[in-house]
């Protein structure tokens, strides 16, 4: 059962990712991205990382992408106009460069991957474990990230509001 589900949702994730780039209309791209996030959440769930799966859905699909869709709807962005004449330079170099990038990426991932393999449902990442790790091992990165996000919010407020 698990491998079948894995292949279904892995395929959905890849198809949605391709559709994200190919689609001309921004709202269709945004919805494809939601599809990618949803299938990633299910892949996390298959591994047994239920808290991360739920957080993926709540934070990315439920909050960030809603804001994306909201802004696209608010600006009423229409279909993207493709340039009249695609440059021959991009055509010539695009495909070889992409293949090279994929090769390097797969090599690096292969090298960095730990020895042995992980079975479905073996990873125990409940809310308790994630919380404990965040507040002990990764306390400093966690706090620094929150400060960074705070700075980003302040910057957005300053940029958006000319007179405070």
């Amino acid at each position, binding site marked *: 059962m698990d491998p079948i589900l894995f292949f279904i949702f892995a395929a959905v994730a890849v198809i949605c990712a391709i559709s994200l780039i190919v689609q001309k209309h921004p*709202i269709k791209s945004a*919805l494809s991205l*939601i599809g990618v996030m949803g299938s990633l959440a299910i892949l996390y769930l298959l591994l047994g990382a*239920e*808290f991360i799966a*739920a*957080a993926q*859905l*709540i934070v990315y*699909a*439920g*909050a960030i992408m*809603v*804001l994306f*869709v*909201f802004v696209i*709807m*608010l600006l*009423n962005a229409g279909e993207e106009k493709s340039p009249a004449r695609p440059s021959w330079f991009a055509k010539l170099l695009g495909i070889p460069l992409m293949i090279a990038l994929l090769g390097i990426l797969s090599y690096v991932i292969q090298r960095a991957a730990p020895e042995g393999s992980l079975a479905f449902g073996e990873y125990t990442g*409940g*809310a308790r474990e994630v919380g404990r790790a965040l507040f002990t091992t990764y306390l400093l990165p966690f706090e620094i990230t929150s400060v960074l996000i705070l700075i980003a919010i302040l910057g957005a407020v300053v940029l958006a509001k000319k007179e405070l």
Partner: protein
Amino acid sequence: MNFFLLSLIKVGLVAAVLMTTLAYLQWVERKVIAHIQLRVGPSRVGPHGLLQPLADVIKLITKEDLIPAHVNKFFYLMAPILAVALALTSISVIPFGPQINVFGVETYMQLTDLNIGVLVLLAISGLSVYGIALAGWASNNKYALLGGLRASAQMISYELPLALAIASPLLLHNSLSLREIVNAQDGYYFGFLARWAIFQMPMPQIFAFILFMIGAFAETNRIPFDLPEAENELVAGFHTEYSSMKFAAFFMAEYANMITICALATILFLGGWHPPFPVELGSGYVPSAIFGMAAAIALFHGLNPARPKDRFTLPVFAIAFFGLAIAFAIPVLNSILLPLFWFASKTGFLLFLFIWVRGTLPRFRYDQLMRFAWAWLFPVSVVHLFATGLLVALYSN
């Protein structure tokens, strides 16, 4: 028993009950609003309009299914499906009662218990924005678009205080599984005061409950926060261009969301299926007494009818109520029916609160709505969460 067969039976039961409740919630809402406004409400189809939901369903199914020419067809059709599917999915993690034994089969009165039940409900309620936002956008109509925009802005804003209000009782219960949350509220202080989250030491969660209910009204787009469908400004908001069953799908989604969020409030704050006072003080006899009294009242008014037709309808109701009263007194059925009774009556009271508020309060203005969420509700819920955390930490040492 076979896991699949058992699950299938449970899903069928829950779906049937949920669909009936959805249909009759509409009837209850129309009746209650009518009586608040000194009207009679639906009264033509069946006795006291009891068959009105059936008539509505037939009307909605047979109505012409119109697809306007200027809509984005794919997303226009996807939006109501998304809305209703997400709304109906969330019922699957709600526990209605404890473990029961039916004909020798041990099972929980719940479709599935997840370790992250609360988070699943939050995730689904976060995703349900898309149904409304897409409906507004795909309709290609300025009123619908404005409704969709308002809905997404409102739901993002109110999700924050809602999630923070959920977080503070979780600090007390120390679990994310809905069944364990209910079990953590078992027992009584001084032998009579229930250990529900709204009474539980060291920090009674009564304020979190109020914050949660305010957020719940906004999440379900109900008055006083029903700006997305404000009819005097936006025609009908995001569902302006929808007709027939697609229109009904949005209504089903709204009512299903209402039921889920009331059930969640019951589980988190009101002790789920645990009775408000212990069995030793006679909480087991309450349903029998209530239904027996209802039967007596119906019988009395049936014998002294105010209208000619009451002579036939009210005795029938009296017999039905009397049958319920007897069912609650039978010891075998007792263990199944009593938890269900307490769960349903708490959830039902909260649903009545939704309808009551709709009959009482006017609608907010849009800027008031946003200021209320960000300048009042959000800081208050943050402070409340910190206070709860501090007290729980001090208490556990």
